[in-house]
């Protein structure tokens, strides 16, 4: 029998290569931070950072507050009370997640403009004469509104899960001790859900930092718009890297805050017993009040803007839907399919390495790969562009490939960037699958004489089929929705549905842009239906 080094197998090499790749953008930014600043940066740096910082912070704090209010409030209502339509509202409340913020922004501008439905209604039916838009959304409060209604579902989902799964007995105990439902909420349920809610708010904040479409459309100055301006308008890669690095720092602080607030306290009770979740039936007027409240949120955050999009599509479809638009749909779906297959396959490689390698640290090392989700798209784009372009220039010098850019001209950089940013999505899906399947199954197969490759094919993959499809779908939708990365890294004249919608909207073709938006949103609804079904099955 031949002995081998215990840490030596093909999986480990593949995993290490993959990790190095995924970490490339961060390395780029870090090395650039250390090198001396450019002259331009010295001149304008402090000034622009100050203004970007202000807008970014106001947006973050505002969105955090309102997503907390909307998300936690609606989650508490649907998980604690029985009221008319609760079953449907419970999942309708998640729907805004399918709406990318920038598409929400376009819809709202349409809803509120002079020729929009609200204006027309007031003018024609009530005889009000208002000039200009009804409410001006193109400012910071407007941005906070748009982000809050698209991102509250993150908080809602986390809080709802926490409310439903946290020990009902503890809340019952509070009630028996004489606490009113309201007091129980503030003194027992809310503190217990705190880590979950904070996690949801952290995710929402990262989406705000990642966004480009909305802030650009509303003319807000955030770090992401700054990076775009520096790179695309001024061609100043150095400044954009500096801005990206500062933004990364901001994200790291956010992550640390989220981690720190948990401290070493435990909010969950360890009792493994699950008492069937039951809901209170409030008095009739309260019941209807809850229904109306939830319906109002759904209408504002999904119904109205979605209706506006559908109206636009009906009006403009004949102008927009042609072969070139069909090509964009095909390209978009093709790119998303390829990326999701690639990302999920690589996530399997990474996690299977953890499974078969004898090293205990491996699990923590591979976590690094999922960090990309926290890093804004613009930052990843800048962090990838610099080394890839550098590599191409070097290649031009040493090889006779005249004038041909090998990596930076095609889709390579874009797919690479998707890999960095969406690895976490595939990683988490596959991780859940492996955890559910358990490690013993794999050990058993190997003790029965199958090597790690055979075991993967015969035992592990068939068992995590569901997780693989879930991962594929989630990555697919994320790629379809993605805007900032695609804008920076796409080849010349290459369009996805997201960039097309953005392009049309910024070029005063907002009604026409709805066609692309609608396809993106409808694709995004798919995993929500799936997700809801899984959550429902678990409870």
């Amino acid at each position, binding site marked *: *029998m*031949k*002995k*081998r*080094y*215990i*840490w030596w197998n093909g999986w480990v090499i593949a995993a290490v290569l993959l990790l190095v790749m995924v970490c490339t953008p961060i390395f780029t930014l870090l090395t650039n931070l250390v090198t001396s600043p450019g002259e331009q940066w010295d001149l304008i740096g402090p000034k622009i950072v100050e203004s970007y910082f202000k807008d970014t912070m106001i947006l973050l704090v505002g969105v955090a507050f309102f997503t907390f209010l909307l998300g936690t409030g609606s989650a508490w209502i649907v998980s604690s009370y029985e009221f008319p339509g609760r079953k449907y509202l419970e999942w309708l409340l998640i729907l805004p997640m399918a709406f990318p913020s920038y598409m929400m922004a376009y819809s709202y501008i349409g809803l509120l403009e002079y020729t929009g439905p609200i204006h027309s209604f007031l003018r024609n039916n009530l005889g009000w004469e208002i000039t200009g838009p009804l409410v001006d959304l193109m400012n910071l409060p407007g941005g906070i509104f748009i982000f809050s209604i698209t991102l509250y579902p993150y908080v809602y989902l986390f809080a709802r899960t926490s409310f439903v799964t946290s020990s009902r007995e503890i809340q019952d105990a509070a009630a028996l001790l004489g606490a009113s439902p309201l007091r129980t909420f503030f003194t027992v349920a809310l503190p217990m859900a705190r880590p979950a809610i904070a996690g949801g708010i952290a995710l929402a904040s990262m989406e705000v930092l990642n966004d480009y479409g909305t802030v650009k459309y509303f003319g807000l100055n955030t770090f992401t718009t700054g990076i775009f301006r520096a790179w695309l308008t001024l061609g100043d890669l150095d400044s954009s890297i500096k801005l990206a690095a500062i933004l990364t720092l901001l994200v790291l602080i956010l992550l640390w805050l989220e981690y720190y607030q948990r401290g070493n306290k435990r909010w969950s009770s360890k009792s493994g017993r699950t008492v069937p979740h039951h809901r209170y039936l409030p008095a009739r007027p309260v019941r209807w009040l809850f229904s109306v409240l939830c319906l109002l949120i759904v209408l504002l955050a999904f119904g109205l803007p979605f209706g506006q999009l559908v109206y636009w599509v009906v009006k403009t479809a004949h102008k927009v839907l042609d072969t070139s638009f069909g090509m964009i749909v095909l390209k978009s779906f093709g790119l998303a399919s390829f990326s999701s297959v690639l990302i999920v396959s690589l996530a399997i490689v990474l996690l299977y390495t953890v499974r078969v390698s*004898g090293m*205990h*640290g491996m699990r923590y090392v591979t976590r690094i790969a999922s960090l990309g989700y926290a890093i804004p798209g613009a930052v990843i784009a800048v962090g990838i562009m610099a080394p890839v372009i550098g590599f191409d220039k070097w290649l031009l010098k040493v090889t006779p490939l005249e004038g041909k850019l090998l990596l930076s001209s095609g889709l390579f950089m874009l797919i690479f960037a998707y890999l960095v940013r969406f690895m976490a999505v595939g990683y988490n899906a596959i991780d859940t699958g492996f955890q559910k399947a*358990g490690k*013993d*199954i794999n*050990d*058993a*197969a*190997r*003790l*029965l*004489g*199958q*090597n*790690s490759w055979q*075991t993967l094919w*015969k*035992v592990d993959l*068939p*068992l995590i089929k569901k997780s693989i499809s879930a991962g594929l779908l989630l990555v697919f939708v994320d790629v379809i929705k993605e805007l900032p990365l695609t804008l920076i890294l796409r080849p010349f004249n290459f369009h996805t549905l997201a960039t097309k919608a953005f392009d049309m909207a910024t070029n005063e073709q907002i009604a026409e842009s709805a066609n692309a938006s609608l396809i993106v949103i409808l694709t995004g609804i798919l995993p929500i239906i799936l997700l809801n079904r899984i959550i429902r099955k678990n409870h």
Partner: protein
Amino acid sequence: MPPILELRNIAKTYPGADRKAVDAISLVVHKGEILSLVGESGSGKTTLLRIIAGLEHPDEGSLILSGEVITEGKKAVPPHRRNIGMVFQDYALFPHMTIAENVGFGLKNKSASEKKSIILDTLALTGLDEDYLSRYPHQLSGGQQQRVALARALAPKPNILLLDEPFSNLDTVLHDRIREDLYKILKATGITTILVTHHTRDALSMADQVAVIHQGKLLQADSPKAIYCSPSSGYVANLFGKFSCIPYKAIQEGYQTPFGLIRTSFQPVSTQENWLFFRPEQVKIYAENQLVPDVLEGVVDSTVFLGDYFRIVLKPRQGHPPCPLIIHGDVAYSPGEIIRFSIQGVKAVNFGNA
């Protein structure tokens, strides 16, 4: 004959743990022998089993299987080349495969008909018939699943069979029956078996050799009889049941104890062994009028009914140093009654502070 498996100084520490999970364990297993690793949960016995299987790698020490070094330093034969069978605690049956596919999974380079006959033979050996072949694991009861897991491990004719807590998922009624069946199967195949359990009764009744592990260390490896009657430490003594220790003085005729004189021809060699050890079953109670030379006497302190016997705590008569003693009887005695008894085969021991 050389041993089939030898463990030399095996040690392993998990990252972040404050003590070794397995601490310098050396053991020898002979062909056809059943070795039982006994210890509380967290003692390191399962880790040791996984090291033997090749699923974990030790930090120190080496493993020798049939005269070949299979684990040493940073190198090891991977698990799929060791030909070691294992039955997992939760069976780890492949849920997406039928019973036939599960049992046939480890059979390589065999024709379909050969495979089929091996699958049938092995299933028959474990007490399952043809009807089960096309069923899926979730359609079987816990006991049946365990039989399939055993058949799957036995089918490739492994050098060694490892059993991880084979009885932990079974209720008490099934427990004893499955243990007897398992014992018959193991002895019928003559396979070398290493069995991890925390039930001392299983270890004593099945094993040829019992190894007691505590906090990663091997405390004692011996025959079941020796483990039970001559434990090397208070921990081992306590793990395998109630016992009593009484002080004594060695005199010409034997051991002088608070309950009387125990005559013996043997004398303790070392003054270190300052206690007399015995199990409740070694105590024989006499009727009041029975004439016995050198009878011991004690006063009943309390009696507890335990189903098939009474546990009686005895104290010496007044005027002697206090020292409780546990015996088994078949009648309830009331406190204050005097019992006459003798002890067969006491052993002078030194358990330290136990």
